[in-house]
């Protein structure tokens, strides 16, 4: 297992480089122009000068190389500097001064370092998207387990019905529907998420709860629907296995049979789905963020895409790819832990 992990970690480096190159070429090929949102009243010559000021005139490979150096060499230096200077974790270490004012990855829209904006977006992404994911998974697993255990019971039928409806109705409809009901008609909840809100006491926590409950619910509905279906299917497969009969024959209690034997085996495919979903937290929830104005990473990505802000899009997708590779590795290791029969080497 250890050699497998190490081999995969080593392999991850060329994989990520290749992915980043593929994304870069894709973005180069894609039609689009960072000047698309500049009004038509600005003449073409001026737009051309603006493009050149952004470094667009250079050959693509040079642009890629510059970006790579900035992301993999200059940004980590800033991170190390920050860790040794300001963070509480490693602040006791002697201060390093690795960063010497080299050019960082600069967004074309805002002319500011991309990483700073990404860090600024993390709180609301965690509050809303990550929390929704956790809530979704926590609801989905018991629903899936119980639906399978009592297959075709009323609970199972109702669960199937609700989750499938939830899954087939897109968030661009559920979001506004919730807003119309809870913000416009009832006036209970705010329709616009305040990203500057600071939680420091009970009252402000209540406000935070109020503003995040709708987006969290919309997002959790999708997660719940998906994961509970996989959980149910996987449980059904395992409930008929011989080892279950053996366990029952040994006189073990139903609770032990279901939770220890069946659940553990059924989790294997579900773990993949859950692990695969984690990077998508970082990818944000484009539509839901937009509907509730949460302005997390998803909104950052979509505005960057529409504005053809290539450094921003590249950096975000690269971080995304990194997380995907990392979580796939984690999922594979978890397989091995959950199912000792799986051998990778």
């Amino acid at each position, binding site marked *: 297992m250890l050699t497998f992990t190490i081999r995969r970690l080593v392999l991850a480096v060329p994989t990520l480089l*290749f992915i980043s190159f593929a994304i870069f070429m*894709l973005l180069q090929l894609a039609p689009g122009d960072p000047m698309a949102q500049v009004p038509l009243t600005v003449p073409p010559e001026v737009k051309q000068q603006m493009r050149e000021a952004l470094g667009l005139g250079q050959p693509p490979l040079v642009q890629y190389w510059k970006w790579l150096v900035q992301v993999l060499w200059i940004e980590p230096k800033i991170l190390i500097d920050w860790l040794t200077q300001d963070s509480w974790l490693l602040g006791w270490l002697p201060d390093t001064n690795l960063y010497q004012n080299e050019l960082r990855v600069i967004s074309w829209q805002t002319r500011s370092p991309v990483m700073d904006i990404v860090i600024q977006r993390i709180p609301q992404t965690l509050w809303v998207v990550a929390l929704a994911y956790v809530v979704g998974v926590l609801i989905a697993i018991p629903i899936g387990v119980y639906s399978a255990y009592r297959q075709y019971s009323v609970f199972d039928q109702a669960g199937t019905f609700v989750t*499938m409806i939830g*899954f087939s109705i*897109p968030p661009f409809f559920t979001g506004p529907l919730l807003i119309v009901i809870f913000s416009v008609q009832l006036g209970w909840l705010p329709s616009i998420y305040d990203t500057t809100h600071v939680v420091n006491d009970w009252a402000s926590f209540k406000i935070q709860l109020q503003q995040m409950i709708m987006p969290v619910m919309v997002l959790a509905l999708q997660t719940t629907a998906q994961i509970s279906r996989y959980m149910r299917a996987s449980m059904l497969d395992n409930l008929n296995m011989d080892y279950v009969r053996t366990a029952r024959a040994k006189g073990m209690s139903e609770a032990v049979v279901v939770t220890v034997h069946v659940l553990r085996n059924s989790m294997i*495919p579900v*773990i993949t789905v859950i692990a695969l979903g984690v990077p998508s937290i970082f990818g944000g929830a484009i539509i839901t963020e937009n509907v509730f104005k949460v302005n997390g990473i998803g909104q950052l990505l979509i505005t960057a895409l529409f504005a053809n802000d290539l450094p921003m899009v590249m950096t975000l997708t690269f971080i995304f*790819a990194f997380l*995907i590779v990392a979580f796939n590795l984690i999922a594979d290791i978890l397989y091995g832990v959950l199912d000792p*029969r799986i051998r990778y080497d």
Partner: protein
Amino acid sequence: MTEPATTDAQAIAALQDKGPLAPPRSQWLDIWDQLKRHKGAMIGGFFLIFITLAVLVGPYIWTLDPQKLDIRNKDLRPIYTAIWDGTAKTAWGHPFGTDNLGRDQLAQMLAGGRASMAVGWAAMLLSLLIGTAVGVAAGYFRRLDGPLMRLTDLFLSLPILPLLLVAVTLFRQPLRANFGPEGGMFVLIVTIIGITSWMPTARIVRGDILTLKEREFILAARSIGTTSWKTITRHLLPNVLSPIMVSATLGLATAIITESALSFLGVGFPSDFPTWGKMLADAVPRMVDFPERVILPGTAISLTVLAVNYLGDGLRDALDPRMRGR
């Protein structure tokens, strides 16, 4: 004791067949019998057939052109609203009402259903095919596992919007020349949805295959010299059917919704080509005044997905010999 011969004769007679043996039952008949007993599957199946027939034959019965604008009759409500609201603007000529440009909603639903069902099924099948193939290959052949899973990583991290724009730029013109403006767009959209949604299926199938191939029955199959192809089709695939079925149901919904998101972004079908997803998206700003405009396409999508889901459940049970007769 006294008449042992008779007892023997009776026993023998009892063992004899009265009539001709029933012909051997085929496996498919068994499956069908099992499926028939699954109520949900039957309802789901009938609903699917109904909706497929409706969108295929419907436009020949309800012959109004879905694109015909009738601006004087715009914003009509469906006729059933007249039951509780006598003042509502309704007309028998437009039983489901009309939209803000006076297009007939029933005709739009039929035409939109045709597009949505076609896109949904085609994209779902394509993604299922790629996903299962990649998953099985990666799980079964250790040599392929690395490259194929890295490929999956690559596809997972590709941003879909630029991918679409590239595809539209490169392939729209040739496809339009070969299949016409709508056919070309159909091929393009189905392909794009298909190749950007197979990765979860592949990962899940691979995970299952990894566990299964260490099982005794696979060892047994291999030890008697079963070829890889036979092992996969006879032994492995039937055992990973349930995650595939779940992927299929979720995939159909995702495909229908993704198509609407694409139209929403202006990279989907031309604007005069209705689909359920697009009708839903267009109606959201007016959902307070005209709730039917979101309810009609929304219900259609949900019911279709539910029907496929139940049918999938039933099929899975029916195809699993251990479940038969339960």
